[in-house]
């Protein structure tokens, strides 16, 4: 057994686990963050995607012990009220059907939009080709990413923060 310190969604956790345990099973079985999904166990489907320092990784094949000192973001940490622009776009497009793959799709999209503010369909296909959706929501995912890009641009062009407007969140 090894003691592993992890920073997940801004909170520090110390886990006692097998030294080679993948992050996925720490998140799901130890930290009860079940929004991250098991799909294949070999990094072929993307259901287990989380962000590490903003970059998407497959948590099913990434040992938790290699992530000490890094910032891990799961779907639960994206926002507390589905207010992240990508979540808002997903909501407006009503993307999910069964929904099982969507945490991974959303986090991959977040990372894409951080790199590429206005992605083309080709950019989207390239970034999300590793995320399988068995329900076939791919066209809705494309539409939602374009919508999220516009939402993010609006935020950038017309920055209204709580501080500036005097409101308290």
């Amino acid at each position: 057994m090894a003691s592993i310190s992890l920073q997940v969604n801004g909170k520090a956790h110390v886990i006692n686990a097998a030294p080679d345990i993948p992050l996925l099973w720490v998140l799901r079985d130890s930290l009860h963050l079940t929004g991250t999904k098991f799909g294949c166990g070999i990094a072929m489907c993307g259901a287990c995607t989380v962000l590490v320092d903003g970059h998407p990784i497959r948590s099913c094949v990434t040992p938790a012990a290699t992530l000490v000192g890094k910032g891990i973001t799961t779907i639960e940490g994206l926002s507390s009220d589905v207010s992240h622009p990508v979540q808002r776009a997903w909501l407006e497009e009503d993307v999910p059907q069964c929904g099982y793959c969507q945490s991974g799709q959303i986090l991959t999209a977040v990372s894409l939009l951080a790199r590429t503010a206005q992605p083309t369909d080709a950019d989207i296909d390239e970034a999300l080709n590793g995320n399988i959706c068995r329900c076939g929501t791919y066209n809705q995912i494309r539409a939602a990413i374009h919508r999220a890009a516009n939402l993010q641009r609006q935020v950038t062009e017309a920055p209204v923060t709580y501080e500036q407007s005097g409101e308290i969140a």
Partner: protein
Amino acid sequence: MSGETILKIDLLNRRDVLRGLGGLLVGFVLPGGRNAEAQRYGAPLPVKPNAYIHIDSDNIVTFVITKVEMGQGTVTSLSQILADELDCDWNCVRTEFAPVDPSSYGPMQGVFGSTSIRTQWMPLRRAGAAARQMLMEAAAQKWSIDVAQVRTEQGFLLANGKSISYGSVAEAAAKLPVPADIQLKDAKDFKLIGTPAKRLDTRDKISGATRFGIDAEVPGMLYATLARCPVFGGKAASYDADKAKAVTGVHEVVRVSNGIAVVADNTWAAMQGRKALSITWDEGPNATLSSAVIRSRMAELAEKPGVAGRTEGDAAGTLARAAKRVEAVYEAPYLAHACMEPLNCTASVRPDGCEIWVSTQMQSGARQAAARITNLDPAHIQVHSMYMGGGFGRRGGTDFISEAVEISQAIGAPVKLTWMREDDIQTGPYRPAAYVKFTGSLDSQGWPEAFVARVVCPSFGGGRGGEELDRTAVEGINDLEYRFPHCAIEFHRADGAVPTSYWRSVGYSQNTFFAECFLDELAAAGGKDPVEVRRRLLAHSPRMFAVLNLVAEKANWGKPAPGRYQGVALVNNLGSFTAEVAEVSLDGGKVKVHRVVCAIDCGQVVNPAIVKQQVEGGIAYGLTAALKGAITIDRGRAQQGNFNTYDMLRISEMPKVDVHIVRSSDAPGGVGEASVPPIAPAIANAIFAATRRPVCRLPIKVSV
């Protein structure tokens, strides 16, 4: 729709099911027993109420949904039906999944055969309308006025300038007699039915809050994996658990009916423990089975006369006299369902009862399976239906439920059993492989005259004996909407050694491919346009004819973009009429599907946005099967194991999809399985148009 509706007022005694106390509960009965679809699945007539509306004093309306959600949108669309007739505020609607309770919900709780809207449409409307009338009566009594003066609006009762919420009279309403004369809305007054209402389950599905079966957590729960014999029908002869037990976190290794289970502190430890098991398998009678052997047996059968199915005119005589005959053999492989959520079940068996938490399409079957294993009274088995990460027919099986219950019983603790993806791909049951031999002929003008098919296919759901016609195995060929002057369909039941089961669109999933492609071969042999041939064969069928014309118009049939080719295919299944045109290009042997146009007449639409989702999703599901899917067998086992060897359609391969829904007031048809069957033949027919070589096998391969 005919059928009795029995209403029952049931105040407070179902508090175990529902949040909160007090308020109006209305139960009702489905007219399912006289429904052909229900009869097909053997569902007896339910005798007691099987769904409920619950109105809290704070005006929150809770609908208890008996049709579980696997992505098909039932939570939303069934709520729309209830809410529209009830005239409540859509923003105040909450939902819960029903428990398994035959006395309340009938003996066959499950989601299968695209039946949810079809069977619930009228009963839910009547339930919603009855509850509204009772609330109006309660308000009338409270205000001492005639009920005719009371009207409703969005969860409120109004009369003479006064207004009161449903919730504040719900308890009084519950004590009133159920109206004998239930007044349903006129279709023109629908406010929610027919609208693209937002899905009620989206918010939780984008925040990680939705609880799928695999997310169940029970105090004291352990985690299990199960090693099964890789050969179909084999079993463990002996095993050595020492190394597995030495893995950190492993608690126990136990033998159950389907294999050797490793129970641990967490899923990872259970996975590692399973790898460390040393098992000697008794591979049983199928140890040398291969796809080649299965295929040669099917080919042999196809040369012999089979059990007669649809027979019209004089097919044999017509073929014997025909100036022009066309013969062809078509084949399709076994397919795994590959739900995104791996199969799993959490079970807690105690001496006095059993609870299971599971994403299942067959809640009743789940309870029966647990009762069979535990020998407990089914009344002491509680099934918690969880959201499903896909179903596609696979979650109609209860094997994974039985396994979890056996393991929990063996170790005396709650346990979550998780299948690995390899278990899912290698265990089956699969959509059956099938083989069809066609013979057709043309009349002197080149129009199809005789259509003869010999279908060779194992039974869906596995090895039922006998030689009778298996209607599921021949659906899509034996019940074609086309009317040929002469037609003869025969059936052979193929070997059932490989486990098979229902797979989204079932027999249509392969038979529509066979029939629609062979029809294009006949059209080509007669020098006819594929759409023109279909119009001629559908003159008697106005709904199928109309979707064919609609899809041809919307796809600009006959005028594909330069370098692209079109193919058309149709299906009439589960109460809906669907036509698709695929626009395809070929780059060497590589097939690119650019665009799919679909026209569907599914009768009355409850939620057009969900219909579109289902149609588009069905096309994506069918695209994987058309372009990629094949389980092949060697040495009695599946040769594929995970998404690296059994790949799924990716976003870069997803075509644009245009869906056109026919406005209709006919009874609702099923949409969950409507669009799957035509996509493979539409693509294959486009390739045939490009190459003039028919595509006779799935998955589609183009030789260059």
